[in-house]
């Protein structure tokens, strides 16, 4: 099972995403932003970081990259795509997901372990979770405030397209506590928190059981692997 990870100039978490895919049992395939060949991967991760230095708007320039254009085309055919943090920003700038992300309400960069509730477990990247499962994964962003028009928010709520909501406090002012979204087909998922940083015991968030033992992020990658195997 090949899962591509696109590296843009300024991407930070591409290696972590590759490692997460490996730990979940998949084969990570590094992809380059300037190359429109996605090497026949079965799914794609747009990792976190600061593509193009966040110039113009976060994710705006990356949304125009040859590799992203190919992701947009193949996502329309059902290719599973996960956008993490800056990857989520790239997905909204590419119009694969609606709305926009603006500077955190309190203007500070936020870095913490964040509790989330799984609202929709019927997507390519969340099918291993229980509905309403509470998970803990790291969050680190400066521009993670999710906004959309009232009409779009209603559509997201009515059609169950919100995949994750922030629990125990909204860290960035996101409307309706939205931490992550999916598209109608369920193959594209974007979220601000970082599942790839909670995949290996000893390196994840602290849990009640033990320090750094949190591995809730692993299920994102296991979900897509399971779906691709069953397809």
């Amino acid at each position, binding site marked *: 099972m090949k899962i591509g990870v696109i590296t843009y100039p300024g991407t930070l978490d591409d290696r972590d995403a590759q490692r997460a895919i490996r730990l979940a049992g998949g084969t990570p395939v590094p992809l380059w932003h300037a190359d429109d060949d996605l090497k026949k991967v079965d799914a794609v991760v747009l990792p976190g970081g600061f593509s193009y230095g966040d110039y113009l708007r976060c994710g705006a320039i990356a949304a125009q990259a040859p590799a992203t254009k190919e992701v947009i085309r193949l996502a329309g055919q059902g290719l599973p795509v996960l956008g993490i943090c800056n990857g989520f920003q790239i997905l909204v700038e590419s119009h694969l997901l609606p*709305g926009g992300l603006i500077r955190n309400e309190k203007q500070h960069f936020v870095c913490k372990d964040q509790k989330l509730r799984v609202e929709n477990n019927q997507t390519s990247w969340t099918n291993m979770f229980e509905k309403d499962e509470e998970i803990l994964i790291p969050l680190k962003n400066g521009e993670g405030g999710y906004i959309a028009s009232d009409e779009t928010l209603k559509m997201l709520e009515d059609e169950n397209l919100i995949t994750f909501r922030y629990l125990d406090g909204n860290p960035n002012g996101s409307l309706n506590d939205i931490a992550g979204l999916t598209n109608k087909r369920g193959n594209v998922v974007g979220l601000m928190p970082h599942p790839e940083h909670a995949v290996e015991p000893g390196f994840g968030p602290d849990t009640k059981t033990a320090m750094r033992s949190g591995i809730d992020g692993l299920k994102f990658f296991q979900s897509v692997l399971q779906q691709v195997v069953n397809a």
Partner: protein
Amino acid sequence: MPKIIVEIMPKQDLLDPQGKAVSNSLHREGKKEITAVRIGKRIELHFDREITDQDLEMAKTQAANFLSNDVIEDVVAVTKED
């Protein structure tokens, strides 16, 4: 040098944290008569020749689709400057 100026502002109903920080600073300096500050962007497109009507149309398209994001921003002006 002929250029096209694109001016972009955050949407009116949206919190503009940058403007708010500057406004707070002005208030600390006693400029209480300033009720709000909003900060947008001015983007210059420089041309190596005379700007045609098609260039202006192209700039308007780019302003709407790439230079701004209509979820969070408004294009307030796209103008030619010789």
